């Protein structure tokens, strides 16, 4: 269960899971960062430097984000799993949702051609990174539209995604 920001948390604006009355050590092992919905994510993404010159709109980027969610939802149906863990790179590329699939889906959702789709993919990744607090140990971001994502190695842009069908 997510508990609202606590005055004992290390940094303001962040919350954690676990028993509020539990020890500080227990709390720190399960740090959860900001919870973010698809609309906020796409609104922030619209100002990503990678999109300069494309004239994209938040609505368009929301469709792109929705497209990626749809690919994961389809995989969940195919696997018959409501939840699963998967390692990702470039934000949302994984063994379940390949780079060509994501690039195609970005095109279907946005109406743009290939080159612009690569720019949008870069913007997706940089937006995701902008929510991550690298100073916080065991940081995890609750993406309301997909599940919980944690950085594995920010330099290599690798993450661990805990996908959830029930959101």
């Amino acid at each position, binding site marked *: 269960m997510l508990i609202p920001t606590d005055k004992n948390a290390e940094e303001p604006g962040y919350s954690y899971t676990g028993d509020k009355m539990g020890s500080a050590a227990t709390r720190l092992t399960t740090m959860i960062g900001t919870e973010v919905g698809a609309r906020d994510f796409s609104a922030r993404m619209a100002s990503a430097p990678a999109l300069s010159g494309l004239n994209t*709109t938040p609505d368009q980027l929301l469709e792109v984000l929705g497209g990626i969610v749809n690919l994961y939802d389809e995989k969940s149906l195919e696997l018959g799993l409501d939840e699963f863990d998967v390692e990702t790179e470039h934000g949302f590329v994984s063994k379940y949702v390949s780079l060509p699939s994501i690039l195609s889906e970005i095109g279907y959702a946005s109406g743009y051609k290939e080159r612009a789709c690569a720019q949008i993919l870069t913007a997706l990744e940089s937006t995701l990174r902008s929510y991550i607090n690298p100073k916080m140990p065991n940081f995890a971001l609750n993406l309301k539209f997909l599940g919980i994502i944690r950085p594995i190695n920010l330099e290599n842009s690798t993450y661990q995604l805990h996908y959830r069908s029930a959101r």
Partner: protein
Amino acid sequence: VIESPLATVIHISDLHFGPSIYNQLSIFKKLVSQTPLQGRFPHSFEVARALAIEIRRILADREKRGVPVIIVHTGDLTRAGEPEELLVGATFLHSAHLTGAGGRVGLDSSVLDIPGNHDIWQRYTPSKKAIVEDYYFRQPYPLEFEFSFHGGKIVFHGLDSNRGSKSAHWKANGEIDPEQLDTVCANIHSDRSSGTIHIVCLHHPLAGTSDQRLNRREVVALRLSEAGASFIFAGHVHEHVTFPASAEMPSHLVAGSACQMGTDNSFLVHDLFPTQLECTNYRHDRDRWKFLPRSI
């Protein structure tokens, strides 16, 4: 233990498919400029994809529990009744689109589909008329479709509520041919003691505040009530509304637009139990990018 329903009816409406299954760049420019022509917006490809996923999830759940399912679409499959739009929409309903990314996008099901006012915009265009006629009017109206399940039967009666004059049609007002109504009422009345559930499907609602309404709708509602219709399903207003049964009208359920761009999206799931119909509105939550159920 969750009790399984006897049968499930999935009710979708107002899909408004454009000429391409994918989103087109110009649509976003229209959205940004906030054009008042919202009724002309086509579908959102990604909401349509999410819709197909959620319906497939429901179909898989009911199949596991041995519950038969039927899907009903109450009109406005297309944005402007163009042949290309009809092809995109019909493929989505009855088959699926191959996209190359992820799974196929569509319901791949047998769907009871009746026309909405947008679907017959080309009824007066000679070069396009034949395609519209071939898809919607190969069978005469009213349509009658029997859906049997263990312990009962539902008969769906499909009405064409787009029989008004050309000018009424452009204002999105509807009209039902009196002969169609007579036939449906007679068929329901003659079967009223059998225990069969009779559901009348049409595009224009029989109640509500929209100005785009059905001519003489109070009379239509009263006649269907007197004949013994169990429920009325409709769409058209792009908003889910429920009207409880009264002396003047059977229970009336209006589905929202399932995937039109630029509007809220939702669809209805009706689970039939021995003594009641349990309705759930699945509303698309844009933050979670998912159709979320809420009991009615």
